[in-house]
């Protein structure tokens, strides 16, 4: 008979082969992902691969594999497979849980791995109680299946519900995957906030895209401490204030391993650095004539400061950390590193600019187009520190933690808890009685065998008495 479409789809989803196949594919993909760097900028790949190979890799999302559609599809397929297998096994599991234990008959005894037969000289109410009690000591409260003056049978079990432990484990795994997929609804990004400033825009991870938050973050203070006598940072902290709707709503001193949480967004201390183009320039100003000494001035970028000579002011118009000239002789900044720090300064007399020029920290004696009454030397630049913050919003994280809890609980039950069953019956045989004890355990037979032996020993003593 031809199988219907639904039943063949069903048998596809419940097959163990599918499980193994998906797990192997996921493992291979994961291994490839640990070899090919993930989420890097194109030039990183182009150094190692041909452009055509790189195009193909991008097409198949090999540069961002763990977030690619096909990896998500594999995880979804795995989840469906797990759910279907679990549903498929449920009826037989339920039958097993709800069934009433049978009396210990000859057919049942054949299937049990542990059995022992003892002879009893006499059997009365007292012996019956002693037997029940010694079973109870080791397994669980026994239920009498049959009890007549001449014969007696009982059943005892413990850990029946540990049979459900694989459901608990699989539920945990499904929850973790669902939580992980839910996490794609959130975002992860990075922002820099200069001390004293406010920022509300993050750069999303693994892309050049920006995202505006519905609140802003002000960094009131940033501190970094170093291990004594070394350049290794010991700790760095930022005093942050959250501003939402124009109001200061929350503040916290965050550090590595201690984030701030606001509106489901976690704000982590991630890095720090000095912000070029936003700091103070240290200049040495020497009058060309007269006997006056050189004087040093510290001027912030975009600020102006009166010199000690009457009427003169000095302003720092712009600062670039890596000065260079473009094709049309315009000033360009090549990088954010202090390779060729330069400042554009303006000398002002009575409110009117009289001289404008660039000074260079690496070339202190360069005096191009010197015409004013002073020579200027660019000594040093002190940038303002910025704090690097990572922002994460993950709506699935609690689902993942719940999944982890069930996974651990399930694994513990699977590995260390077992369903132990014990049958006992006493039947008259000629002028004495025959006591039969039999049992089995779903797992850990070795330790159950010890328990079984101990019960046998006690029963032997009862039989002797």
């Amino acid at each position, binding site marked *: 008979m031809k199988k219907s479409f639904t039943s063949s789809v069903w048998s596809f989803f419940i097959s163990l082969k599918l499980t193994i196949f998906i797990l192997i594919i996921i493992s291979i993909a*994961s291994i490839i992902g640990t070899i090919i760097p993930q989420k890097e900028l194109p030039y990183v790949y182009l150094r190692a691969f041909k452009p055509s190979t790189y195009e193909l890799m991008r097409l198949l999302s090999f540069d961002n594999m763990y977030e690619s559609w096909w990896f998500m599809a594999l995880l979804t397929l795995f989840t469906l497979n797990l759910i279907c297998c679990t549903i498929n096994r449920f009826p037989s599991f339920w039958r097993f849980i709800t069934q009433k234990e049978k009396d210990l008959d000859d057919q049942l005894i054949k299937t049990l791995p542990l059995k022992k037969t003892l002879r009893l000289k006499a059997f009365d109410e007292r012996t019956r109680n002693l037997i029940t009690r010694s079973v109870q000591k080791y397994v669980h409260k026994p239920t009498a299946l049959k009890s007549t003056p001449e014969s007696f049978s009982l059943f005892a079990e413990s850990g029946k519900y540990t049979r459900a432990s694989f459901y608990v484990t699989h539920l945990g795994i499904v929850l973790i995957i669902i939580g992980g997929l839910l996490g794609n609804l959130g975002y*992860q990004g990075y922002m820099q906030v200069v001390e004293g400033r406010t920022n509300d825009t993050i750069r999303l991870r693994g892309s050049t895209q920006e995202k505006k938050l519905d609140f802003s973050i002000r960094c009131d203070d940033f501190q970094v401490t170093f291990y004594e006598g070394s350049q290794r940072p010991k700790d760095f902290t930022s005093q942050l204030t959250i501003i939402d709707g124009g109001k200061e709503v929350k503040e916290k001193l965050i550090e590595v391993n201690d984030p701030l949480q606001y509106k489901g967004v976690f704000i982590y201390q991630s890095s720090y650095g000095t912000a070029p183009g936003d700091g103070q320039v240290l200049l040495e100003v020497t009058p060309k004539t007269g006997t006056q000494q050189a004087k040093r001035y510290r001027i912030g970028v975009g600020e102006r400061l009166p010199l000690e000579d009457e009427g003169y002011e000095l302003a720092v118009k712009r600062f670039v950390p890596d000065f260079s000239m473009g094709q049309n002789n315009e000033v360009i900044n090549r990088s954010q590193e202090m390779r060729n720090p330069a400042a554009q300064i303006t000398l002002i007399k009575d409110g009117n600019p009289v001289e404008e020029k660039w000074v260079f920290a690496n070339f202190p004696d360069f005096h191009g187009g010197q015409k004013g009454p002073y020579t200027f030397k660019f000594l040093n630049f002190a940038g303002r520190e910025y704090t690097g913050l990572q922002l994460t919003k993950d709506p699935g994280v609690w689902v993942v933690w719940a999944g982890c809890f069930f996974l*651990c609980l399930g694994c513990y039950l699977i590995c260390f808890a077992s369903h132990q069953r014990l049958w006992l019956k006493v039947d008259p045989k000629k002028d004495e009685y025959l006591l039969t004890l039999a049992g089995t355990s779903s797992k850990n037979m070795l330790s159950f065998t010890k328990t079984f032996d101990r019960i046998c020993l006690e029963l032997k003593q009862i039989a002797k008495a």
Partner: protein
Amino acid sequence: MNSSSFLGITTFLYLFTMALYFAYIFYRSKKFGLIIRGFTIVGLLVHTIGLGLRWYESYQLGYGHIPLSNMYEALVSMAWCIVLVLILMEQKFKTETMGAFVFPIVSIAMAYASLAPSVQDEIEPLIPALQSNWLTYHVMTCFLGYAAFAVSFGASIAFLLKKKDAPPSTEEDAVTLPALDLLDEIVYKGNAVGFLLLGIGIITGAVWANYAWGSYWSWDPKETWSLITWLIYAAFLHARLTRGWRGSKTAILSIIGFCGVLFTFLGVNYVLSGLHSYA
């Protein structure tokens, strides 16, 4: 005496204990078994003093951290965990003979830590990301898990050798190598304990990463490889519990799993790079 001298003595004690374990395979006696147990425990004590002193010394240097932060400390602590788990398993299963297959791992780890030029044994300060109690929980659960896998690996080798050498015989053999059933049980128990501990280790790592970096899972090579290792042991448990595999088949799966452990613990650091590059 500083921590280095104690750990040096430990290495020699372990090498000697390994030789005793080898001898035990051929000269079996209950008394000899007890002597070996004694040496193992003394070795572990000296080892513990060495690690404790190193911890104390890190406080004197002003760093103050548990010795789990670089390759040297990882290897030495790993060896400590393996010996501890070995003693506990030997105690539980009343046998001294897996040691011959576990102690080579311990001795290699100790010797590699002190001899390999690429392994620096200086006490270094912790980078801010590692300054957390989660370091202890995460690394200790993972290491104890690896240690349980190592003991199971030793028992798997013992199982395969015994199965190959001697056709099933009884009482007499029981002193040299534990009886096959017992070894099979040790392989299973060790892997089950390791599976649970590695699972908890991965989860504590996820909780910590979520707290320190803002993402519980970032497909870092070490994370990915620990997951793959965990999946191999999951396959082991499924094979045994639902398919009823026993003996040689599961012993081979257990050895494959341990290869995964070795790659996760060492290979990732030397071959791949990522968040865990410091240890």
